């Protein structure tokens, strides 16, 4: 009787999860289906599978590639994402190490400042931020990296701090006795131990920066420095309200592929990084 009840409960859980998965996957599937359909058919029947009449092969992809700034925007996005993530991982891990190991009122205040920055919504600061970004000439690719570093620091410092707390200070003391200075201790001992958390921080920040639309739009605009999300939105515009939806869908597919590959490559580290330090090993 009990096992029957449990079976029923399990199946209902599965059903809910399957429905949820479908809801989450549906947009990607719809984009994928429509990227190989003619523009007219996308508007007419967006949810149907392509057939011999509606299927256009890779022509949407070729059009998206040739008639937009896809390549340039792609490399802009790669540049900004790679360097922002590298800066975030390197600098916030160092900051977190300092905050955890040097205990005084200053580091305590600094820690709470970082945590507080996590709960400030971007929309609240975007106008003043844009104003000062232009004033300080940060409206460039290197400039936006600095801004991303500021926005990503809160969560990253928080995550790194949690993990560093679980590393026995004795390991660092052993390194000091072995002959390491602070820089060597960080790069040869602490940073390698932080690898799972560093990968998690990289994934979370890379997904956010790669897909971010509002900040690059406000800071970099739609000129030569524009990123992929802005380029996709700007591209292939015809008359008023008219867009080549097929090519747009193809660009979207191409835009999400790198980040999906990156995620799949590193996803096993996400859980490991999130739970790292939660229990004594």
């Amino acid at each position, binding site marked *: 009787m009990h096992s029957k009840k449990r079976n029923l409960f399990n199946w209902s859980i599965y059903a809910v999860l399957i429905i949820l998965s479908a809801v989450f996957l549906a947009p990607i599937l719809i984009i994928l289906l429509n990227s190989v359909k003619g523009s007219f058919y996308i508007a007419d029947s967006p949810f149907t599978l392509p057939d011999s009449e509606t299927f256009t092969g890779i022509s949407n992809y070729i059009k998206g590639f040739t008639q937009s700034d896809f390549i340039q925007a792609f490399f802009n996005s790669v540049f900004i994402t790679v360097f922002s993530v590298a800066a975030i991982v390197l600098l916030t891990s160092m900051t977190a190490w300092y905050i955890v190991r040097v205990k005084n009122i200053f580091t305590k205040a600094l820690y709470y400042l970082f945590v507080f920055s996590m709960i400030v919504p971007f929309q609240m600061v975007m106008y003043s931020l844009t104003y000062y970004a232009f004033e300080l000439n940060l409206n460039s690719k290197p400039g936006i990296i600095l801004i991303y570093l500021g926005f990503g620091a809160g969560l990253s410092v928080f995550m790194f701090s949690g993990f560093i707390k679980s590393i*026995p200070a004795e*390991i660092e003391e*052993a390194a000091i*006795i*072995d*002959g390491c200075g602070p820089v060597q201790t960080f790069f040869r001992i602490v940073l390698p131990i932080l690898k799972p958390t560093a990968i998690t921080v990289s994934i979370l920040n890379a997904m956010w920066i790669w897909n971010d639309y509002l900040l690059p739009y406000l800071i970099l605009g739609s000129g030569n420095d524009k990123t992929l999300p802005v380029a996709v939105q700007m591209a292939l515009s015809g008359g008023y309200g008219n867009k080549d939806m097929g090519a747009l869908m193809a660009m979207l597919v191409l835009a999400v592929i790198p980040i999906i590959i990156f995620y799949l490559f590193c996803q096993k580290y996400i859980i490991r990084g999130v739970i790292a330090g939660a229990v004594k090993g």
Partner: protein
Amino acid sequence: MSSIEFRNVNKTFDGGKVTVIPNLSFEIKDKEFVVLVGPSGCGKSTTLRMIAGLEEISGGELYIDGTLVNNVAPKDRNIAMVFQSYALYPHMTVYKNMAFALKLKKTPKKEIDEKVMWAAKILDLEPYLNRKPRALSGGQRQRVALGRAMVRNPKVFLLDEPLSNLDAKLRTEMRSQISLLHKRLETTFVYVTHDQTEALTMADRIVVMDKGIIQQFDTPEKLYSEPANLFVAGFIGSPQMNFIEADLTRRGNNLKAVFNGNEIIIPEEKARKLSSYENKSVIIGIRPEDFSLAKNGKDSIEIEPEITEMTGSEINIYFRLDGNRYIAKIKSDLKPDSLRTLYLKPDIRKLHFFDASTTRAIVH
């Protein structure tokens, strides 16, 4: 030569508000195995960390090998340290853990290889050189930590409760291995523990500390047979020494200790040293193992065991006298049902007498 000398060393925290070590002066000789022992918070680990250079010295002077090292960086003190939590580098293999310090010193690869293999052979670590620490047992990890210290060929070995995380069987095994290592390496060893068995079995000399002050610095034998004060007497020995407050009175030629309605005639040799304590209170210490079973009440105490503990070849008997709890350890094949009413006879030649006000030992 690798002696260590503390001269009026003190250690304070929080800008001088908290004093952990008020004034420490002692010398560890070359090639000596010295154990620092004491209860939690007595300052033994802080003392060790000051030798390592991991804690700054607030005042006084510390010499290693005759050189003042107060301001010398840990890496330049030519010491090696083994930590309680092993402190192995988790991302490196056993080989790399052991080779790390030599690599930092830019030692030639061939020499690194030779030294690591030498240590691995002594410590039976050869099959595990390519493993990461997480794939090793507690005992193996501790051996890697020892190996990491050995390859550096240090002047001084510092060991901070290295066996505390191991189970009882492994602890006994590692204990003898560390003692053997000391004999083999012929280097000065400073070892911190709160476990008096470790201290007594391994040390050439033991520093007993309490509240940052050295209570006694002596050989294990002396600490056991001639404790300097009540603290040392109570700390060294398991089960701990029994203490009884008694009044000394003279009747005729005999000096007697009177307690709880009982009387003990103090042997002549001890009585001479106690003459200035006539008609005063003293504290008598008697080790549990200095009781023996008596057949009748003559020169003995009648007790009713409260708890008995069988420890193998011996039985610990807990009993009360006038509300105070005492313990006797007797070698016996007594059956549990015979442990109802017993007569215990203390070996009066082995009584320890302490000054009741200063707690210092008067005579052993």
